[in-house]
């Protein structure tokens, strides 16, 4: 079983993975060499790509369940927004606060 530990060396985080599979390490070395990177640089590059893909997939899944993100816009409303209507004037937060004060 692989184990990973994080350390801080001179305030820079470091990741040590114990029991790293040998074949995976060999493949990583090959890929790093092909890309003219060190194993460390290649590992960071691959992790960045994998994490970005994971984050994108999570955001997409999240947004697909959001009724707001999938709501139907009425054409007249959409066109109205493009004209800049309602831009300016008193901010709604202030307007509502004043409205509540006046009651």
């Amino acid at each position, binding site marked *: 079983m692989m184990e990973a530990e994080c350390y801080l060396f001179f305030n820079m985080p470091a990741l040590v993975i114990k029991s790293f599979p040998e074949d995976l390490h060999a493949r990583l070395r090959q890929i790093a060499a092909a890309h003219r990177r060190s194993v460390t640089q290649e590992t960071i590059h691959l992790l960045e790509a994998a994490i970005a893909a994971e984050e994108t997939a999570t955001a997409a899944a*999240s*947004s697909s*369940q*959001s*009724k*707001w*993100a999938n*709501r*139907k*816009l*009425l054409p*007249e*409303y959409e066109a*109205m*927004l493009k*004209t*800049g*209507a*309602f*831009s*300016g*004037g*008193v*901010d*709604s*937060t202030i*307007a*509502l*606060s004043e*409205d*509540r*004060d006046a*009651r």
Partner: protein
Amino acid sequence: MNPVYYDASYLLKLQIVESGTIEVRGHASTVREIHSAHHGRAEFASAAFRKVREGVAAPADFQRLMTQFHADCLSGTILLLPLTDTILDRVDSIFATAPVTVYLRAADALHLPPPPNTDSPRFTPTTPTSSPPPRSSACAG
């Protein structure tokens, strides 16, 4: 994905473009549905109509905005929660236990009472933030 409770200001920031719109729309895209108290509908209309009074929107724009808002209610994107006796009882208890220095307006208080056993965050920029929402699910389109 949990539902979230917005007060009328957040509802308006969703539907028109003003300060905070990008952030509120971004947040709305991460939640399943949006809840607000029933009286938020009247507050929404009042704040939107003020924009008409101030000359930054035409009466026809107001109608278009309200039509979209009602469509969002009918589709279940926005759920307007009824103001029940239970809610009003909780408002009573909020005032009964509030420190004497608290300035809490009636409309603020109506947005505050969370039912027990709920865990959705509430976003009420014109009021202090309290805990969770969903009292029930009703839409007045």
